[in-house]
């Protein structure tokens, strides 16, 4: 996976039960609709909890990260198929 670490705009559904589901994101002026979320994990960096999502737009695999402390979304990496 190519590591990027780019701040991006993401639309997500915050459902009851602490479930966050990213729906689409913008990257390089293109909107990517998320068709599948294949994995989810959490980690911490200092006192910030970070939520990681492995998602696909039907073409490529992306890793999105939501920092619960500063409320920012980052595109951590992309695996182009």
């Amino acid at each position, binding site marked *: 996976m190519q590591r990027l670490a780019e701040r991006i705009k993401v639309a997500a559904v915050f459902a009851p039960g602490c479930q966050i589901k990213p729906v689409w994101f913008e990257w390089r002026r293109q909107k990517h609709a998320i068709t599948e979320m294949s994995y989810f994990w959490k980690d911490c960096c200092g006192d910030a909890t970070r939520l990681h999502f492995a998602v696909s737009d039907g073409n490529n695999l992306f890793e999105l990260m939501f920092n619960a402390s500063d409320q920012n979304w980052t595109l951590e990496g992309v*695996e182009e*198929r």
Partner: protein
Amino acid sequence: MDWPRIILHIDMNAFFASVEQQSNPELRGKPIAVIGAAKRTVITTCSYEARAFGVKTGMNSWEARQKCPHLIFVVGNNRKYTYTSTQIINIMREYTPLVQVFSIDEAFLDVTGCLSLFGSAERISHLIKARIKEQMGLTCSIGIAPNKLLAKLASDMQKPDGLTIIAPQDVAKVLERVPIGDLCGIGKKMQQHLSRFGIKTCGELGRFPVDVLKRNFGITGEQLHYMGQGIDNTPVIPDEEAEEVKSVGHSTTLEKDITERREILMYLLQLSEMVGRRARKYKVAGKTVTLTVRYQDFTTFSKQESRESFINNSEEIYQAAVKILDSIELTQAIRLLGVKISNLRSHTEQLPLFPAERKKALLANAMDDVNNKFGDFAVTFGSLLGRDSGSKVISPAWRPEGLRNVDVD
């Protein structure tokens, strides 16, 4: 026959590789190998599809590629694995409080007292399997037996996604032809020793005169005798009841073999900071500092030195490690370095009386405060700036909570 205890051993199948295959659907059904983030490309684990070609854990990438030319290498993500493991352990704890984490991908459960709640051990196994499959898409192999030794043996009998039961009345029959090496605790060296007595199977080990075993192996001889008979009375010990941790240590396999003192010292400083930070986090200090060195030919040795006072300050640990290093004549390039403090006692903060010591303690506190907020190595020693930080390998001693919960990059 009655079951005195009912023990489950749960073993995640090709854990890291399966997590990667779930994360990236393109990898499912394909031969993949997980490698460390460092430039050394030793295989941490591989998928069952890769195993079918003869790829094994510990092989280097070149060797693995010879076995399986279309093998896909994936750089591991330890934090993904520790999170997943913690979630899995939490599922297990919903069925019994008696969960002993054996490693990141293995655990023992004592379900003897939970049957009235959930039905049979088989049903509990199916429920746990289904939950893990549904939440993470992963499979595991479960062994059910009257003790830990046999439960572990049982879980190994059917992989992947197996469920094997060894009932008390079947123990002797099952063990008769099982090679001794299949028992947890009998390694290659012990196998060689036992083969000198003509012992190759558990049946042969169980029947072998215990006196001869004791004479040759001491206390272990008696244990071996019981192991051969499938007897193991060790309890399932949950982490909160486990013995106190006796040491805090970190080691790292270096990106390349090194000989230069400047480089060695940098790694020692980094390791000392990791040890000191974890010791301070869990409020322990150690009196003995140990330095471990592995040469390029894999010769490994440790040297330790006890101090007059207990320490957990990174700089003091570093100074002690350097002192040990200076007492060693290095004869080869170094492949791995490790720093450890042991002889631990709980350490409640008391600011030193003398200004120089006080300054040092305040500085360490200030660094810890910043690193607690922004992450490890956010503030560090100048000579470590720009270096990769953190532990690259999940230690077998990793646990989801407490002093053994080592942060891994």
